[in-house]
């Protein structure tokens, strides 16, 4: 038997996952501005062709992965929030994915760069934390 709290959670969690889909699309769209902002062309001219291409392929792939994850969230929010094995497993993957991204944002990227772009840093950290939290909630309590 479902409790009132459980029913409320089943109503709220898909909405939060749907918002997570939009947030992931926004993060993906930031990648369209990065090449100019971080002067990819000028920098990549210094490395070998194969490494340059791997960099480009990785950049494209990250956008595609984020778009795909967003698509899963927008189309299957109820399944991701539900108690089924598939939804919980995919949510767990997404929770770890974004928790790692929070760690990288806080501890890997240069402090000077983050100070220089403090608004972007705060927005990114907030977005990554939101995503990690929502998916962790779906994985644990779905």
């Amino acid at each position, binding site marked *: 038997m479902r409790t009132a709290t459980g029913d409320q959670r089943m109503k709220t969690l898909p909405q939060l996952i749907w918002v997570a889909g939009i947030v992931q699309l926004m993060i993906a769209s930031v990648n369209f501005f*990065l090449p100019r902002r*971080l*002067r*990819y062309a000028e*920098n*990549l001219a*210094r*490395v*070998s*062709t*194969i*490494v340059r*291409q*791997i*960099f*480009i*392929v*990785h*950049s*494209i*792939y*990250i956008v*595609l*992965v984020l778009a*795909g*994850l967003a*698509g*899963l969230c927008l*189309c*299957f929010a109820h*399944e*991701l929030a539900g108690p*089924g*094995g*598939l*939804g919980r*497993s*995919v949510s767990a*993957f997404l929770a*770890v*994915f974004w928790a*790692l*991204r929070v760690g*990288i944002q806080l501890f*890997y*990227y*240069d402090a000077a*760069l983050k100070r220089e772009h403090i608004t972007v840093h705060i927005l990114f950290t907030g977005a990554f934390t939101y995503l990690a939290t929502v998916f962790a909630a779906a994985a644990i309590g779905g």
Partner: protein
Amino acid sequence: MNPLLSSALWLAGVGHFCVLLASFQVPARMKWREDLAKLRPVNRKLMWTYGAFIVFTIVAFGTLTLALHDELLRGDRAALGLAAFIGLFWLMRLVMDFTVHTHADWPSGRRFIVAHVLLVLLFSVLAATYLGLVAFYWRWP
């Protein structure tokens, strides 16, 4: 349960870890450390971050395929969504191979030719397995 699809999914799950075995050799064989030292720190870190997340995604695809083998085979709506995502991921990798990453840009030598052929074959099998699963249920729901 379709036995061919079932076996193909087990193999596809394991196949992801075979891709990773090749991926882990790339930084050393392509001398990334030496090459990436020429980049600004932010771009260098971005490259490692992107690489790490792609590796993590491939680990997740392999693990999810093995752990959710039966769910994927049942062909529920969300399972097909996941299969389509993984299938498109590998299909795009193939497209990249024929557009951005052509063999002319690989280091020379017979072992690189063999490695490239094997990788393309593996990407094709992975794309075909997941998209085949989607097509199977699309046509016979």
